[in-house]
């Protein structure tokens, strides 16, 4: 399992009369980690929702491994594509292990029980997000960061060939942000991830797509995409981009207005 190919072809998404995304195309080759960046409301989440089959495209197609994601049964797609979404579940006294076990559902028939293999997959998914010790805790009582890691573990337990994540580093402290992105980096799957932090995106992703007002305004390797001109256009901020001496990744430094800085003592 080394990941599958994703091809978003000319997708347009609307909500009522409101257009969310216009004519967006995006590809991810097997095993690639693709970052989706852009300001709030630029259409990142909407585009991801079209990929994990919650928001049906008005026009265009989403192809996973060549097949139209929207014309196969939901269950079928869920065996290939997993997602970590931004949505609160309800409080129903489930343990962390039971939440992660849900990830096995698309591989199960109606009356199948959990096998030893399932339990193994669940356990190793929890271990890989550093959450093995949480297994028997009630999911309702976890902190925001712990919840996020458990939800990622659930997606891992699904054993996807394509993993879609909507800002998975939200609510995480910096150590867990790095850990989570490191896990995604090493996943034997194709990864499509929406991120806010441009430096993290530059460091971990093979290629970036920049969305603005529902359209792709730039795409390519981070070093080519993240330029001061683009950042000014898209975010309206002044920034310097250098190549970090040790990591070799582009390093974005934002330059706030002089007046907004605290005076140095």
């Amino acid at each position, binding site marked *: 399992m080394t990941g599958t190919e994703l091809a978003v072809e000319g997708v347009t998404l609307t909500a009522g009369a409101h257009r969310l995304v216009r004519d967006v195309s995006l590809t991810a080759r097997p095993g690639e980690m693709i970052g989706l960046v852009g300001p709030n409301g630029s259409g990142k989440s909407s585009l991801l929702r079209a990929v994990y089959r919650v928001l049906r495209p008005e026009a265009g197609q989403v192809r996973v491994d060549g097949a139209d994601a929207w014309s196969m049964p939901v269950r079928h797609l*869920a065996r290939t594509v997993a997602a970590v979404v931004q949505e609160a*579940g*309800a409080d*129903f006294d489930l343990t962390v292990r039971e939440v992660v076990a849900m990830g096995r559902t698309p591989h199960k028939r109606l009356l199948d029980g959990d096998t030893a*293999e399932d339990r193994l997959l669940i356990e190793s998914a929890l*271990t890989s997000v550093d959450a093995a010790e949480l297994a*028997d805790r009630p999911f309702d009582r976890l902190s925001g960061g712990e919840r996020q890691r458990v939800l990622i573990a659930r997606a891992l337990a699904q054993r996807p060939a394509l993993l879609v994540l909507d800002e998975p580093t939200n609510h995480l402290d910096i150590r867990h942000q790095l850990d989570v992105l*490191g*896990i995604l980096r090493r996943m034997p799957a194709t990864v499509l991830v929406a991120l806010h932090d441009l430096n993290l995106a530059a460091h971990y992703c093979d290629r970036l797509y920049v969305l603005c007002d529902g359209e792709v305004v730039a795409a390519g390797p981070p070093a080519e995409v993240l330029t001061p001109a683009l950042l000014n256009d898209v975010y309206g901020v002044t920034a310097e981009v250098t190549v970090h001496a040790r990591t070799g990744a582009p390093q974005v430094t934002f330059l706030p207005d002089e007046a907004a800085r605290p005076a140095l003592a």
Partner: protein
Amino acid sequence: MTAPATATPTARRPTAPPEQPRARTFALTLVVLAVLLVASMTAGMAVGSVRVPPGEVWGIVTHALGGDWSEPTWSRARETIVLDVRAPRVLLGAVTGAGLAVVGTAMQALVRNPLAEPYLLGVSSGASLGAVAVIVFGVSLFGPLSLSVAAFAGALLTLLLVYTTARSGGRITSVRLVLSGVAFASVLTAVMDVLLLTSDRGNEARAVLAWTLGGLGGVQWATLWLPGAALALGIGVLLVQARSLNLLVAGEEAATTMGLDVARFRARTFVLLSLVTGVLVAAAGPIGFVGLMLPHIVRLFVGGDHRRVLPTAALGGAVFLIWADIAARTVAAPMEIPVGVLTALCGGPFFLWLMRRDARRKTDRGVA
């Protein structure tokens, strides 16, 4: 940068953990509840204006079931009381209690709200109105099944109305759900009262009014099969789909990404829940709060996995309603209190406790 714990999932080979401790609790709970159920049914057949010792109850029941090893030592009158009056009543209590608990469990998962329950959401009122309309207007399109069919239609319509009203922007808040349930229930009950008061069948209206408070009295063997069949169908279908109910708890989008066709599943399950509720209401009247209390109590013991909650809630609901009915028959004897009044007496405070607990949990987590 990363601890060794974050190696790739395939690189490590942790041994499969043993079955969860909850699995053992689950088995134990089922056994305890099954024993309790048998004991409760015995009590239900023993207690009443004429007391029959439990041993004699067993003798009568085994004798009737064909276990002919004991020579009858009891009077014919006692046999009639146990077999023809109390046994069907106890069975209807068990079936209704189990059915309401199961419907409540599934409804809470389906609308992802811990306060959902057929009575609170007005579904029982819808079913009642359907049944009353059939009685008042004397419709009998479906023969003896007319009452249940009308109750089913009323339940389904109300459930759809309440759900659509409470849902806005893809989310259902507790407040909106309960308020629309209460609002629809008031309107439906008012319409039902008008129908009953203006009906020219005065005597029947009185009987129906008693039925609208929920009661298990006057049931006969001949009509018992329908609630039984509805319960079997409901539990069977829901147990098979227990995993899907689990997924819905995670959220609708998350459930979709894990392979559940949410819209279709919800539509099908709404119909099923309305069917079970309709049939039960037609048989026993609208009995409230069983569907609210049982799932929550059961989750404290076996956790939230629906593969465990459903059977446990069914057994618990059966036991609970049998005892509620025993209380209804005895506390004010020889007067009989409608069992729905008693369940409301327990359920109201429970509802308040639940509401406060949820609010507390939310503030604990810093959610507004």
